């Protein structure tokens, strides 16, 4: 992501004091703890023009829930809304804000790939942006995934607390992936990737996992291409 953004001429900084957006605490009902972490994030990213994350999940937390956590304080809520307004998921930033055309930049990535649409992408209003982006990469053959909109069953602690139900859900996802015959799955949310790649490995479906950022960096020749099997 850093390499692609720098290639596009942007200055990238990584505030090292950042930790976590607090989504696990929020989702599991620990809202006092989530609020403290949100407050940290707002401080850490203060003064930066745009905040970008490869994960739609983190972006959704900042965008959808931060303001709600500070419902009691106008000043804090306003700061939360300001951060939310300048926080983007990576593909969202590329397609909706920067409007980058990767074909014009000569991106080339020979191979077949399918795409996992994470639930948090839906949460932040993304639909087929990644798929359209993939279609602008030379040599890439996009293989549509059946039941694209269905959750992979990760759900954070859901996968730990209800492993059987979660395991049954991801089994479906693996079957749909296997059906595409694609060599690579584009999956930008780390949680989903950990879950789906782990299930692919267990079930013997040999497919590589990459984030959209990784694929773009490889396509632009910024990163040596690796074929990581699941």
């Amino acid at each position: 992501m850093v390499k692609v953004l720098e290639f596009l001429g942007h200055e990238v900084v990584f505030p090292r004091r950042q930790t976590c957006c607090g989504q696990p605490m929020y989702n599991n009902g620990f809202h006092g703890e989530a609020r403290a972490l949100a407050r940290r994030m707002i401080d850490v990213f203060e003064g930066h023009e745009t905040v970008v994350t490869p994960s739609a999940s983190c972006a959704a937390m900042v965008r959808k829930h931060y303001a709600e956590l500070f419902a009691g304080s106008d000043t804090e809520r306003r700061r939360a809304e300001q951060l939310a307004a300048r926080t983007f998921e990576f593909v969202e930033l590329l397609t909706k804000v920067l409007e980058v055309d990767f074909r014009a930049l000569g991106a080339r990535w020979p191979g077949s790939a399918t795409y996992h649409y994470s639930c948090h992408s839906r949460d932040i209003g993304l639909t087929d942006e990644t798929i359209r982006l993939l279609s602008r990469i030379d040599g890439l053959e996009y293989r549509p995934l059946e039941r694209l909109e269905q959750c992979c069953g990760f759900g954070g602690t859901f996968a730990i607390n209800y492993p059987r139900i979660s395991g049954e859900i991801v089994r479906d996802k693996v079957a749909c992936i296997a059906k595409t015959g694609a060599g690579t799955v584009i999956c930008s949310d780390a949680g989903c990737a950990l879950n789906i790649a782990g299930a692919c490995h267990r079930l013997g479906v040999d497919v590589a996992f990459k984030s959209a950022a990784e694929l773009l960096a490889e396509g632009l020749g910024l990163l040596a291409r690796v074929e990581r099997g699941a």
Partner: protein
Amino acid sequence: MTEHPLHPRLPFDMKPRAALAAEDALLQQFIFTATHEKDRGRVRVCQRAFGERYDALRGLAGAIKQHTLDHLDSYLERFIDRAEAAGARVHFAADAEQANAIGARIAEAHGCRLCVKSKSMVTEETGLVPVLERLGVEVVETDLGEFIIQLDHDAPSHIVTPMIHKDRRSVARAFVRELGAEYTEDPERLTRIAREHMRTKYRRADLGISGANFLVAETGSIVLCTNEGNADFSVSGPPVHVVFAGIEKVVPALRHLAVFLKLLARSATAQEQTVYTTIITGPRRPADHDGPGEVHVVLVDNGRTEILRAPTRELLRCIRCGACLNACPVYRKVGGGHAYGAVYSGPIGAVITPLFKGIENYPDLPRASSLCGACFEACPVKIDLPRQLVWLRRESVEQKVTRWRERLMYRLWAATLERPWAFGLARFLQRWLLRWRARSRDSGSQGQRESPLDPRWMTALPGPGRGWTECRDLLAPPSGTFRKWWRSRGRGAESKGGGP
């Protein structure tokens, strides 16, 4: 099943039922096919009918219901006034017991022996049927699905399609056993058998019971939507019609009803309209050819005014279309509604059941969700179900329903995340531990790609990781990290304050 599917011992544990369902391949297939087709169908028919305006229409429906709930007292009063002016009698029941007692009193007062009943979730909720049966009233469910469920001594597992978990063979067997019919698996012949049986009941019935899809305040009307016309038969033949309706069923006026009728059937079964949509205002009038001489409306609270409290109020917008069940990956995998151990299942059940019956009695329901949001997207009245699930989780934490070990773990985790040094240490330890584990236990066992220096996959983890590795492997963290790479680029890591 020794335990009643919808009224289990409390506190209810979802896991054993979910595990049983996971073993049942046939059940998994029924539920998947039915829910997936309906969900896709909903999207297709709504896109065709509303296009870009689908979302706005859902917003409008939600806003109408929300407005009605914000002024529920005055709309209910208006409904009561108008319904009584039209000749109906309106009763109010604070809880299930009161509601059933009112139903029983009416049946007794008229000396009823045979009741034909159309589908109603609220009567399932209050448990009306057994109460009437104890009085010696024979109750016949006339919705085909409910009829089969009743015949087979089973319980509904879906708000709209109650026998989603059953197959033709079990229906055929029940018909042979209970009705003395000839064995057939042909759906048309099965329907014909049920129809013959029911017609004789309709002719003799002296009590008709129905639910209500909507109550219209402006006119005091009851709205019934069915596909089989069974509600119309049930309430027009017998001399007495008793309606059971939740207090949240009211909409202000007929013009608002139009919005909901556009959405209900499309969301529920991917139909443009239900086959029969009937608006009933009061009992039979002198010029009418048929209809009951008496109409009683029992308005049921049974926990609803509690839900009306601000943060959960939106849940009462629900029009019981079942779209959230059809869209839910969890509902599909736990074998349908019975895994929720309550009358209402799926995402909406997961939030209202704990509110009706206590979170401590249903600790799993708000937790057994990946919060994927498919339910929210499907909901015709835009109930933010993921947000409600999270709100209940917060209640679980605050009421200490969440176990202390878990509460301690989250607090420690959060405390770590608040301190960059602790966060760094925790990341280091986690990486080291997982890599050590991968190297010492699993390394190389899974194939050629792995090198002993860069362990990859773990196939069996202890403790909290055991569940994970029951169904999938875990990738060990790589040796390098983003932060290391960032430092290695040898430049200030931050715009402010500089880096190493």
